[in-house]
C-alpha cells in the first residue's frame, strides 16, 4: 500500500550523487592505462562521393603513429541488421552499415580511417597526412525530393526505407461531419543531443585475451556488434559501461566502441578515443527532422471526428533505427485522443544528410508538435476552451487506440493539464512591444520497448551475512538515476537503508544483462527485475523465519532490518539471525531473476493494427512567455509540468527528469536546429548549435501525480522520454496565444516570428512592403 513505503516515494539523496558532487566519478575519458595510445577518426568531407584514391602511407610513417586502419583492415566491415515488421514495398529490409568507408561516402563526416598514436597531438597531426581523392556523386538532401523515383539512391533502389500506416473508420465520412477543420504542415528540427560528456572510451586486451571496452554506453550488448565486426567469439569481448555524462539516445547506437576495439585488437595496446565536440556534431546521429501534414476535424460540440496525416522523416544516410522511430511516430500520431476515423501514412526516407536515429522521444515527440497545435487551432475555430476541447476527447483506460492497442493504465490528462495551467499563476503584464502568451500541450509517450521484442531484464540480488546487500545488474546509467532506482527498489523490498545496498552494474561479463537504457524501459524492466530478485530473496528469508516464528511465510515482511509479523509487529526477529539460519542450511539468500515484458505478436502489416507498447505515460506542460513584437525575441517567463508517473520511486529524480525534459524540449521548440546546407554541417559545435542556458529556462513548477497504475515496480510508469515531448509544443501554443499567428516551423526563432508578424500585418492592412 502506498502510504506504507519506507524508501520509495520519498526524496532520496542517492549514493552516486555524492560521488558526483565530490568529483570522484571516473567518467570514460578520465580513465587511463599505462602505455595507452590515443585514437582519432579520419572523416569524409563530402556528402556523396566515391573514394577514388586513399593514401595513408604518410600518416603511417609519422613517428609516434602505431597504426592507421582502413576498411581493408576490418574483418567484417559491413554489418547488416534486419528491420523487423516491414512487409511491403519499402527499400532495405536490412539496414546496412559500414564501419569504415570502403568506397562510397554517403554523408559529410562519415568515418574513413582510424589512427592510433602515442599522443593526442601526434594523432591529430597524422589526420592531416591522410590523402583522399573523391569523385562527386549525385546527392539528395530533401526527403520529399528523395522519395521521387528519379532521385539518386542512397542504398539499394528505394530511398523509402520504412512505411507505416494507421487505418480506422472512414476519414472522408468523418470530415463530412466536421463543423471545423484545421489543416497545417509542420516541420520539426534536426536536434542534436548535446550531452555535456562527449563520447569516449578506452579499450584494451586483458591478460586472458579478452577485448575490454570501457566506454560511455547506453547499450552494453554492443559487445556482440564488436565481436561480429572483429570476427571473434562474443565470449571474448567485454563491455564495461561507465556512468555517462548524459546520453538521451546519443550513446545508444554504435559510437566509439567498434573503433576502439579494432585499434586495441590490431595494436595489442590500450587505446583511448574521445569524440571532439565537432565530431559529436558531424559524426553521430541526430533526431529525425519531420514534415507532418495534418488535417483534423471536429464537430461544433467539440468531438473529434477525423484525422488524416502524411508524415515524412529524414532518415539521413543510413537506416539505423529510423523504421522504429517511425513506428513510434505513427502510433503516437493521433495524440492521446479517441478519434473514430483515422488515416495516417508515414514514410522514412534516406538522404545524404547526417544519419538520424535515437533521441529522447524517439518519434513520438515530433508528432506532438503537430497534434497539439491542431487541437489549439481547432479550439480557436470552434470558440471552445482548449482544455475543454481536449477533455472531450482524451483517451480513457479501456479505450482502443487507432493502432488497435488497449489503454490499460489510468489516463490523468485532464488532471495534468489543469494542474499545469493553474500552476502558472496570475498572468504577467506585457507592454507596448511585449505580448504575453500562454499555452499548454498534452502528450502521451510510451515506456518500455516494443512488445514484440521479447524484452527481458535480469538482476542478481545477494543478501550478505550482516544484512547489507549487493545488487548486480547490467543496466547502464546515463544520469537518469537508473542505478539509484534499482537500489531504492531493493531497499524497499528487503527492509534496508539505501546506504547498505551496493549496486554493481553495467559490465557485460560480470553483471546479468539488463538490456538497454533506452525507450524509457530502465525503471520498468530493471526495476521490475530487481523487485523480482529481491522478492525471491525475501521469500528465502521469510520461509526460514516462518519456521522459527511459527507463522506462515506470507504473513511476514522485512522492515527495518527485521523480519516482522504483519499483523503483530511486536513479534519479529533480526534479519541477520534469519540470514545466518539460511546459511547453516545451505539456503543462500540470493536470486538471479528475469523479468519478461509481456509479449505481443510482431506487427503483421504496414497498417499497424496490433498492440506495440506495454503502456503509456500521460502528461501536460504549460508555458507563459513574452514575445517582443518588434524583434520576434521570446522570453520564457513561467513553466509548469505535470505528469502522472504512477508511483514515484525517488521524488527528487522524477522532478529532475521533468525539469530536464522542459529545458531540452524548450530547446527543440525555440532554438535548436542542427543545420546542414547541401549536406555540409553548419552548426557542429556548441558555439553555433545553441542549447538553453540557465537564463533561458525559467523557474519550473513540477507537479508529480501518482495513479499507481503503471506496469513498473510498485505501479510506476516511466518518465525519461515523456518528460520532453510536450515542452516545445507548449511554447508554440503560447507564441500563438501571444501574437495570434500559428508558426508551424520549429524551432520558432525570433526571425521566424518576426517575418510571421510582418506577413500578418501586411495581410491585415493590405499594404505593400
Amino acid at each position, binding site marked *: 500500500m502506498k502510504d506504507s513505503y519506507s524508501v520509495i516515494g520519498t526524496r532520496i539523496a542517492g549514493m552516486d*550523487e*555524492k560521488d558526483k558532487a*565530490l*568529483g570522484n566519478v571516473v567518467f570514460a575519458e578520465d580513465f587511463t592505462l599505462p602505455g595507452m595510445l590515443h585514437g582519432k577518426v579520419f572523416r569524409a568531407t563530402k556528402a556523396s562521393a566515391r573514394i577514388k584514391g586513399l593514401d595513408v602511407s604518410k600518416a603511417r610513417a609519422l613517428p609516434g603513429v602505431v597504426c592507421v586502419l582502413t576498411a581493408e583492415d576490418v574483418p567484417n566491415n559491413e554489418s547488416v541488421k534486419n528491420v523487423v515488421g516491414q512487409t511491403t514495398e519499402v527499400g532495405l529490409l536490412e539496414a546496412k552499415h559500414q564501419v569504415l568507408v570502403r568506397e562510397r561516402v554517403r554523408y559529410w563526416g562519415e568515418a574513413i580511417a582510424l589512427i592510433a598514436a602515442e599522443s593526442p597531438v601526434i594523432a591529430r597531426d597524422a589526420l592531416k597526412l591522410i590523402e583522399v581523392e573523391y569523385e562527386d556523386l549525385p546527392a539528395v538532401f530533401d526527403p520529399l525530393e528523395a522519395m521521387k523515383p528519379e532521385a539518386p539512391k542512397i542504398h539499394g533502389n528505394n530511398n523509402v526505407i520504412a512505411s507505416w500506416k494507421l487505418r480506422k473508420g472512414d476519414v472522408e465520412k468523418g470530415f463530412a461531419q466536421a463543423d471545423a477543420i484545421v489543416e497545417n504542415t509542420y516541420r520539426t528540427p534536426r536536434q542534436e543531443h548535446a550531452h*555535456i560528456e562527449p563520447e569516449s572510451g578506452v579499450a584494451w586486451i586483458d591478460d586472458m585475451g579478452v577485448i575490454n571496452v570501457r566506454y560511455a554506453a547506453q547499450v552494453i550488448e554492443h559487445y556482440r556488434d564488436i565481436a561480429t565486426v572483429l570476427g571473434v567469439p562474443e565470449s571474448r569481448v567485454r563491455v564495461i559501461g561507465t556512468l555517462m*555524462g548524459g546520453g538521451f539516445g546519443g550513446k545508444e547506437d554504435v559510437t566509439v566502441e567498434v573503433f576502439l576495439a579494432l585499434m586495441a585488437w590490431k595494436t595489442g595496446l590500450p587505446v583511448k578515443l574521445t569524440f571532439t565536440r565537432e565530431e559529436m556534431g558531424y559524426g553521430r546521429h541526430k533526431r529525425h527532422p519531420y514534415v507532418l501534414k495534418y488535417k483534423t476535424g471536429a464537430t461544433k460540440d467539440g468531438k473529434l471526428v477525423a484525422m488524416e496525416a502524411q508524415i515524412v522523416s529524414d532518415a539521413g544516410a543510413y537506416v539505423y533505427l529510423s523504421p522504429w522511430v517511425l513506428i513510434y511516430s505513427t502510433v503516437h500520431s493521433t495524440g492521446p485522443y479517441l478519434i473514430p476515423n483515422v488515416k495516417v501514412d508515414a514514410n522514412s526516407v534516406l538522404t545524404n544528410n547526417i544519419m538520424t536515429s535515437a533521441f529522447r522521444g524517439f518519434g513520438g515527440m515530433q508528432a506532438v508538435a503537430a497534434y497539439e497545435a491542431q487541437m489549439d487551432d481547432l479550439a480557436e475555430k470552434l470558440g471552445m476552451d482548449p482544455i475543454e476541447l481536449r477533455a472531450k476527447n482524451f483517451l480513457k483506460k479501456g479505450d482502443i487506440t487507432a493502432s488497435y492497442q488497449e489503454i490499460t493504465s489510468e489516463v490523468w490528462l485532464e488532471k495534468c493539464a489543469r494542474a499545469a495551467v493553474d500552476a502558472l499563476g496570475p498572468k504577467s503584464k506585457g507592454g507596448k512591444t511585449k505580448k504575453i502568451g500562454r499555452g499548454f500541450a498534452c502528450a502521451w509517450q510510451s515506456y518500455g520497448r516494443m512488445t514484440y521484442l521479447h524484452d527481458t531484464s535480469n538482476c542478481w540480488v545477494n543478501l550478505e551475512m550482516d544484512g547489507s546487500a549487493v545488487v548486480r545488474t547490467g543496466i547502464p546509467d546515463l544520469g537518469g538515476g537508473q542505478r539509484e532506482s534499482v537500489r531504492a527498489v531493493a531497499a524497499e523490498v528487503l527492509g534496508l537503508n539505501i546506504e547498505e545496498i551496493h549496486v554493481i552494474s553495467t559490465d557485460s561479463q560480470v553483471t546479468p544483462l539488463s538490456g538497454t537504457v533506452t525507450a524509457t524501459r530502465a525503471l520498468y524492466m530493471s526495476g521490475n527485475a530487481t523487485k523480482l530478485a529481491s522478492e525471491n530473496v525475501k521469500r528465502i528469508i521469510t520461509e526460514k523465519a516462518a519456521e522459527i516464528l511459527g507463522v506462515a511465510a506470507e504473513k511476514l515482511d522485512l522492515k527495518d532490518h527485521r523480519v516482522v509479523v504483519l499483523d503483530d509487529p511486536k513479534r519479529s526477529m533480526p534479519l541477520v539471525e534469519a540470514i545466518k539460519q539460511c546459511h547453516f542450511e545451505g539456503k543462500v539468500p540470493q536470486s538471479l531473476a528475469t523479468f519478461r515484458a509481456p509479449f505481443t505478436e510482431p506487427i503483421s502489416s504496414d497498417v499497424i493494427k496490433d498492440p506495440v507498447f506495454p503502456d503509456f505515460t500521460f502528461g501536460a506542460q504549460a508555458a507563459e512567455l513574452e514575445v517582443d513584437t518588434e524583434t520576434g525575441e521570446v522570453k520564457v517567463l513561467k513553466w509548469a509540468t505535470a505528469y502522472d508517473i504512477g508511483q514515484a520511486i525517488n521524488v527528487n529524480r522524477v522532478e529532475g527528469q521533468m*525539469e530536464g525534459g522542459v529545458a531540452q524540449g524548450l530547446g527543440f521548440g525555440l532554438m535548436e536546429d542542427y543545420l546542414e546546407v547541401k549536406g555540409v554541417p553548419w552548426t557542429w559545435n556548441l558555439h553555433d548549435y545553441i*542549447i538553453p542556458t540557465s537564463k533561458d529556462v525559467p523557474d519550473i513548477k513540477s507537479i508529480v501525480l501518482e495513479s499507481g497504475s503503471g506496469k513498473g515496480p510498485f505501479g510506476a510508469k516511466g518518465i525519461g522520454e515523456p518528460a520532453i515531448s510536450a515542452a516545445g509544443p507548449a511554447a508554440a501554443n503560447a507564441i500563438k496565444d501571444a501574437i495570434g499567428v500559428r508558426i508551424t516551423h520549429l524551432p520558432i526563432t525570433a526571425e521566424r516570428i518576426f517575418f510571421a508578424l510582418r506577413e500578418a500585418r501586411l495581410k491585415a492592412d493590405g499594404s505593400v512592403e
Partner: protein
Amino acid sequence: MGARNENGLYELCITVNDREIRGKVRAETSLLDFLRDNNFTEVKRGCDTGDCGACTVVKDGRAILSCITLALQAEGSKIYTVKSLGSWDKMHPLQQAFVDYEALQCGFCTPGMLMSAKALLDANPKPTREEIREAISGNLCRCTGYQKIVDAIEAVARGEYR
C-alpha cells in the same frame, strides 16, 4: 617559467588545490590539458572551445574556463578544482546542497557548476535567483533544467547549511 627546452617544452609550476604541481608543457597546452594530464581528471572536457563550462576552475578567486586558458598563463596562480571543496566525510555546503536538492543528475557539468557557484557566493553571499542564473550562465547543463541547481545554491546562500 623556465626557458624552452630542446623538445619545445616549457617547465612550469602551478598551485592546484594548495599543492605545487610541476610539469612540462608546450606553449599552446591548455590549462585543462595540464590539469587532466596531472590527474586532476575531476576537471572535465566538454567542448574545448569555451562554450560549455564543464572545465570551469577557480583561478585567483575568479571562475574561468580552463580549456581556453594556456597552462603557462596560469603559472604562479592558485587554481582550485571541485576536489578542493570537500571530501566524503566533510562535504562542502554547496556539495551537500547539490546532493540534497538533486541539483545534479549525470554529474558531468557538476564540477564546473560547483566552482562557478563557489566563486559567486564568495563574491556575493546573498545573490538573488536572477543573479544565480547569471553566475552559472556559462555552465551548460543538459540534464536538470537548472531549476534544482538554482534551488541548491539559494539554499546555501539562505544559510540552510550553516
